[in-house]
């Protein structure tokens, strides 16, 4: 059951803090609701007057914080599409690489392996030559490098390594994948540099 509000409560609230008109004071003395309202009003007002904040900052500090937060929010909003494109680029690059490796199968893997082996042997030979070992050892290293390169050439001749002309699709796919993987971080860093400025 809802209690009926006393019609004088609003008058009492308006008059609170000062002396009540005689009629209102007479009513308040006999009305429990108004008596409660007067008591609570006085108690809370007195309490509020004694309350003191621990340490509120100056208005300028609060305003500065609001500005900084707004700036951070704007930057975050501006970066959102770039972050999205970054993720899309990485996903597309990964997908192209995956398709290349899985789709081409052995030729692509052999191509990568041959390249790695040739590079490794050549580096080994160069290091051997530079480290001052006897000339015979250096010559052996050079021979190994030549063998590796020849093996790569044989693979190429056998069609295992696509040449630039013959294997344009694979080379192009590799290039696309590289661009897709490298472009987003590059764009991002350029944008961050621009934002910092």
């Amino acid at each position: 059951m809802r209690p009926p509000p006393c019609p004088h409560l609003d008058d009492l609230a308006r008059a609170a803090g000062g002396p009540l008109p005689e009629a209102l004071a007479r009513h308040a003395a006999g009305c429990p609701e108004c008596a409660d309202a007067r008591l609570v009003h006085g108690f809370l007002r007195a309490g509020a007057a004694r309350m003191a904040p621990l340490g509120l900052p100056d208005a300028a500090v609060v305003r500065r914080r609001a500005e900084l937060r707004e700036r951070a929010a704007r930057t975050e909003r501006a970066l959102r599409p770039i972050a999205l494109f970054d993720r899309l680029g990485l996903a597309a690059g990964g997908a192209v690489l995956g398709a290349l490796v899985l789709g081409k199968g052995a030729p692509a893997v052999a191509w990568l392996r041959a390249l790695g082996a040739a590079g490794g042997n050549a580096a080994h030979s160069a290091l051997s030559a530079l480290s001052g070992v006897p000339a015979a050892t250096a010559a052996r290293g050079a021979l190994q490098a030549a063998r590796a390169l020849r093996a790569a050439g044989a693979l190429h001749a056998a069609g295992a390594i696509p040449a630039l002309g013959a294997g344009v699709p694979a080379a192009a796919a590799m290039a696309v994948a590289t661009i897709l993987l490298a472009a987003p971080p590059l764009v991002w860093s350029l944008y961050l540099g621009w934002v910092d400025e």
Partner: protein
Amino acid sequence: MAAAIQVADAATGVDDSGGAAVLMLGEVAFRDFYDRTARRLWAYLAAASGDPALADDLTQEAFIRLLRAGIRPESDEHLRRYLFRIATNLLQDHRRGSRRLAPLAELREGASPGPDAAARVDLRRLLARLKPRERQILWLAHVEGHSHQEIAAIAGMRPASLRVLLFRARRRLAGLVRAAGLAPEETP
């Protein structure tokens, strides 16, 4: 309407020069509003939450959100109601997050001990016996002097529900004040 807004702008010192959608209050206008309102908002939050330190944090946060809200205030009173609404929402979010507010009776003293310390403890002790929502609406009604419609808007309640809740909260606090011997006619 345009004239009303112009009058309101003159009263609140709203800075229309900036084209940004945020920080509509000019520096001077904000300082003026902050100086007049921050302490009152803090008292409301401290009474409603029972935690002076939390009230410090929420007061700052409420002002920051008010600045970032980018509203064009119709009047000073409108801005104040909006601020209290933000603060009330922050308090409710905090309550949902922490699930439990610190009991007021266990709180550390907000200000240095003095002749009013006992009275402050009485206020905290009695408010601690009320529900957080009861503390909020009693404070808004009796200290801030808001109407039922305004309190309902600030607290996110229906006016009819508010009237009943306010009646019960007032009766309860009055009973507690009398039981504690703090009613003026009962104090020796």
